[in-house]
């Protein structure tokens, strides 16, 4: 796999605040990469560093083979960024916003008109092309921001909280678009978000940042396996044996984490790891409990995030 973004031991400080600390990371071509962390974790600073808008205090950055500090303009001609606020000129029309940025991004003159009208149509803004952006809804502005970021057909698209402030319908459109850009158009998408459901749904891999430091990186599934040992298990037994099963589980010691409980006509307990599930099942069966159904809930990024945030494995 080709790494299109490479950071090695990158740090950046603002006065007393260490915004990014010793960050080493690779992002591969064509993947949707999630960059997770709470506010102030260093996500936006990282986007600025890899686009040559900020300079690193130390460390080495390469994006598409360019050094952002010395080759910023060449690099930015091949990346697109959608900032947290759509950052559109409200006093200009949608058409002006796109046409002017087409010039700034160096879109070939002969193609400007076609690309602008194509993007306006793609993002369902063609009928509002001559309206000032001030009259647009948040969702329309975000769509226009996407159109602007795609004018020069960037190889990497950076999205900083792309669904922040959007209603569910608009957020869903953004998700579809991101998936389309990565899967159909083979672009690399780098998403900064603290929306864990969004990251779980969209991202091939995620990195979790905390106080400017990388604390974990991998696919959501890998991270869940690595950091979340505790699995919630739902169990259906013979109703007459439910109380007995509850007692057995409560006394299961290392296999069950916490107290099992009666729920939804069955039992629910936290298995202390994946291997604890078959062992617990054997224990119940050997004690004469008739088990009709057992299902484990896969941990998600939210579980990973809180496990990491708590600073310990569950």
């Amino acid at each position: 796999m080709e790494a299109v973004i490479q950071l090695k031991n990158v740090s950046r400080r603002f006065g007393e605040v260490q915004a990014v600390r010793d960050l080493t990371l690779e992002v591969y071509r064509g993947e949707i990469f999630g960059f997770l962390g709470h506010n102030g974790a260093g996500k936006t600073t990282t986007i600025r560093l890899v686009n040559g808008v900020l300079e690193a205090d130390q460390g080495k950055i390469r994006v598409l083979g360019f050094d952002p500090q010395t080759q910023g303009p060449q690099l930015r001609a091949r990346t697109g960024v959608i900032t947290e606020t759509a950052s559109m000129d409200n006093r200009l029309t949608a058409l002006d916003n796109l046409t002017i940025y087409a010039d700034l991004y160096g879109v070939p003159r002969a193609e400007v008109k076609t690309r602008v009208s194509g993007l306006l149509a793609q993002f369902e803004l063609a009928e509002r092309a001559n309206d000032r952006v001030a009259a647009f809804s948040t969702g329309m502005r975000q769509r226009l921001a996407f159109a602007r970021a795609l004018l020069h057909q960037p190889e990497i698209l950076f999205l900083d909280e792309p669904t922040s402030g959007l209603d569910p319908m608009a957020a869903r459109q953004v998700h579809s678009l991101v998936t389309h850009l990565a899967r159909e158009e083979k672009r690399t998408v780098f998403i900064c978000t603290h929306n864990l459901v969004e990251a779980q749904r969209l991202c091939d891999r995620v990195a979790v940042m905390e106080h400017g430091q990388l604390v974990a990186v991998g696919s959501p599934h890998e991270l869940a396996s690595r950091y979340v040992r505790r699995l919630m298990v739902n169990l259906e037994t013979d109703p007459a044996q439910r109380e007995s099963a509850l007692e057995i589980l409560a006394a299961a010691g290392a296999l069950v984490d916490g107290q099992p409980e009666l729920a939804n006509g069955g039992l629910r307990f936290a298995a202390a790891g994946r291997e604890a599930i078959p062992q617990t099942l054997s224990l119940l069966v050997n004690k004469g409990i008739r088990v009709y159904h057992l299902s484990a809930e896969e941990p998600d990024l939210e579980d990973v995030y809180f496990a990491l945030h708590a600073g310990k494995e569950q």
Partner: protein
Amino acid sequence: MNWRVLMAIVKKDLKVVAQNRSVVIPILMVPLILFGALPWLAVLVPGSINMGGSTMNDIAPLLAKLPANLTAELAPYNLEQKTVIFFLVYLLAPMFLIIPLMVSSVIAADSIAGERERRTLEALLYTPTSDRELLLGKLLSAWLAAVATAAAGFLLYSVMVNLAAWQVVGAVFFPNMMWLVMVFWVAPAAAGLGLSVMVLVSARAQGFQDAYQMGGMVVLPILLLVFGQATGVMFFSTGLVVLLGLGLWLVDAGLLWYGRRFFRREALVSRL
């Protein structure tokens, strides 16, 4: 230097400014009053010529202080003609510089501090423009608008001065060489002064209004020139305005050299 990029920034800034009433109204009104109405007021209302405490009746002592070259230039005219010409051609000359200064600083405040306030600057920082192109584009938009407004004001003033003074002077006497130097040499430098001050001010200002107020002191040197002329301490002449322009260009260059550090991406993004 990528001219297409520069022109895109100019186009963007001017289109945005054109939608801002608080910028457009003073840019239109001040020249209209200064260059459209003042010549008529000066000629039709004799008592209105009272700059520095001098009125038409007691302007003779001021005229007596004129240097030899100006005295020679005004020699063919009678006292009333001299008074009108002296007022319209010389006394008002420094006021002309307020226009490029004001227009450049108000547009620069809107395009630098205002853009940051509107949170549109960051998108611009992510474009493939270099820091130098970004700075030049921003400067160029304000400078071109200021020079164009000054030139339009000068044309208006040329017509109005000759029309208003026709009954008294009976000839076309404006513009003279000094004014041409003012328009083509000093006014662009004055526009540059407004810009360079605004580049410095915008590094500290929170928004457009803040920047504009902080940059307002830039007109003080112009007011000193007006006062100096009205009190007879100094008189504008072609030689003096050539030197004045040279001085302004040097100040511009110094301020821009010092201020360019505040216009690096690094510095701009840190204040977002």
